C-alpha cells in the first residue's frame, strides 16, 4: 500500500511541479495585453503574443478544414469496407503515419509546399499539421463507426433508408459524439506542435492572416522567447506556455463533455 502511494506521488509530482511553476511564472507575466499587443522590440517593455494566438487559431483551423473531411471520409470507408485492399491500406497508412516523428512531417511539407512556393507560409504550416491530424481522425472515425451495432444500420434499411442515407444519417450520426471527442483531442495535439512549424509556418513578428505569408504560432513564439537572453521575453514565454496548456485543458474538458453526451441528450 505504502509503495503504491509512493509510486503515485512520484508519478504525480512532476505534473504538480510543472503546473505550479507554470501558473506562478506564466500567471505573473500574463496580462490582457498578451492577447491584444504585438511582440515589443527588444528593450521596450510590454508587448504580447496576439499575432501568435491568431496564428495558432489560423493554422489549426486551416489544418482542420483539410484533415477532418479527408480523415472522416477515409475512416468511414475503412469501416464500411473492412477487409478490402483499399480499406486495409487506409488503416496501414494511418498507423505508419501516426508513428512518424512530427519533424519529418515538417520536412515533407517543406519539400512539397515551401520549396515549390519559394518561401515559408501559413499554408505550409497548416499542411504539416493536417498531415499529423489525418491519421488520428481516420483511425478514430473507423473505430467509432465499427462500434455502431450493425443492427442499427439494418434497422435504417428496413425503414426504407437508402444505403448512403443509412450510413450518414444513422451510422455516422450514432458515432458522432465519439468522433467529435477524437477531433478535439487531435486539435489539442496539433495546437501544441512546434517542430513541423519551424521551417514551414516559420514565425512572424507582425500581424498576418495571409495563407501565403509566414505566420506566427504560440509554440514557435514560446520557442523563440524561451531561448532569448532577455528576462521579459522569457517571462512572456511562460505566459505563452500557460495559454497553450490552458487551451489543451479546455479542449480536453470539451472532449470529456462530448463523451458524456454520447447517448445524445438533445436532438436536431
Amino acid at each position, binding site marked *: 500500500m505504502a509503495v503504491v502511494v509512493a509510486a503515485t506521488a512520484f508519478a504525480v509530482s512532476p505534473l504538480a511541479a510543472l503546473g505550479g511553476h507554470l501558473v506562478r511564472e506564466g500567471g505573473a507575466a500574463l496580462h490582457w495585453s498578451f492577447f491584444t499587443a504585438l511582440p515589443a522590440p527588444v528593450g521596450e517593455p510590454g508587448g504580447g503574443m496576439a499575432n501568435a494566438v491568431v496564428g495558432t487559431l489560423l493554422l489549426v483551423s486551416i489544418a482542420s478544414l483539410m484533415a477532418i473531411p479527408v480523415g472522416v471520409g477515409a475512416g468511414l470507408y475503412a469501416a464500411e469496407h473492412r477487409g478490402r485492399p483499399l480499406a486495409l491500406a487506409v488503416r496501414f497508412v494511418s498507423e505508419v503515419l501516426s508513428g512518424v516523428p512530427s519533424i519529418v512531417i515538417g520536412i515533407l511539407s517543406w519539400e512539397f509546399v515551401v520549396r515549390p512556393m519559394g518561401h515559408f507560409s501559413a499554408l505550409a504550416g497548416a499542411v504539416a499539421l493536417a498531415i499529423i491530424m489525418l491519421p488520428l481522425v481516420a483511425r478514430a472515425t473507423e473505430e467509432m463507426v465499427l462500434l455502431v*451495432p450493425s*443492427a*442499427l444500420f*439494418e*434497422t*435504417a*434499411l*428496413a*425503414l*426504407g*433508408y*437508402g444505403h448512403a*442515407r443509412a450510413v450518414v444519417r*444513422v451510422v455516422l*450520426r*450514432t458515432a458522432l459524439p465519439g468522433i467529435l471527442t477524437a477531433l478535439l483531442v487531435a486539435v489539442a495535439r496539433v495546437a501544441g506542435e512546434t517542430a513541423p512549424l519551424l521551417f514551414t509556418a516559420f514565425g512572424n513578428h507582425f500581424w498576418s492572416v495571409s495563407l501565403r505569408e509566414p505566420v506566427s504560432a504560440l509554440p514557435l513564439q514560446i520557442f523563440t522567447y524561451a531561448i532569448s537572453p532577455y528576462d521579459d521575453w522569457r517571462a512572456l514565454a511562460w505566459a505563452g506556455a500557460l495559454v497553450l496548456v490552458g487551451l489543451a485543458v479546455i479542449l480536453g474538458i470539451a472532449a470529456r463533455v462530448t463523451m458524456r453526451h454520447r*447517448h*445524445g*441528450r438533445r*436532438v*436536431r
Partner: protein
Amino acid sequence: MSAPPAGALATRDLSLWYGPVQALDLVSLSIAPHAISAIIGPSGCGKSSLLRSFNRLHPLAADVRVSGDVTLNGASVCASSLPVEELRRRVGMVFQRWTPFPVSIYDNVAAGPRLNLRLERADLDAIVEQALRRAALWDEVKDRLREPARRLSGGQQQRLCIARALANGPEVLLLDEPCSALDPIATQRIEEVLWELRQDVTIVIVTHNLQQAARLSDETAVLIGGRLVEHGPSSQLFTSPREPRTEAFITGRFG
C-alpha cells in the same frame, strides 16, 4: 378472380445459399393476410433468412444466392417496378435486440415518415401519436417525447421500435424474435400489441418460444434444415401435428 388482399406474402420454391451452405430449400409458403403467423424451428433452420427475404435484407450478407420468388400481393418483391426502399416501407421489420436510434423518442418514430413525405408539423405529430398509440406506448411517453429513446426500459424500447415501423404504414410487420431478451411482463405487453395489430397488418413472427407461437399465432410454419416441414393453423399444429418431425420438435425431442 379478385385481387389478393393487401399484405399477402408468399414464397414459391425459395432457395437461399450463403456461399456453399444452403439455408433455405425450396420453401413454398403462403402467409395468411391480417393474421399472425409464427415461424418456428431449431436454431440455424433458416427462420431469419426466410424473414429477411421478405423485405430483401438478405443480400447484406456476403456471397448470397437466391432462387425462386417472394411475392407481395401477387407481385414479385424483386420486380423493378417496386424499389427496395418502397418494399421496406410496406414490409416493416423489428429486430431481436431493440435498436432505437440515438435521438429522441419522437424523432425515432418520425424517422420513416420524414424520409419520404414532406409533412406539416401537425401531420407528422399525428402520425407519431397514432404509431405510438398502436404500439401501446403513447400513455407512457406522451409527456417525454423529446427525451432520448435510450432512457426507456427494454420493453418500452422494443415497443418504440414497433411504433417506428408502424409509422411507415406497413401492410406487413416482420418480427425476428422480438421478445427473446424481455421479461414475461414486457413480453405480454408486446403480444397484446401484436394481437391488436393483426386486424389491419399482416404479422410474421420468428420465435424460439413455442408457447408464444402457440398462444399468439393464427398459423404456424415449421422450418427444419431449411425446409418447410409443416404449415397450418396453430391450434391444429400444436395439438395434432401431421408430421412426425413437427411432433418431435414441439415436444422437445430435438432442436
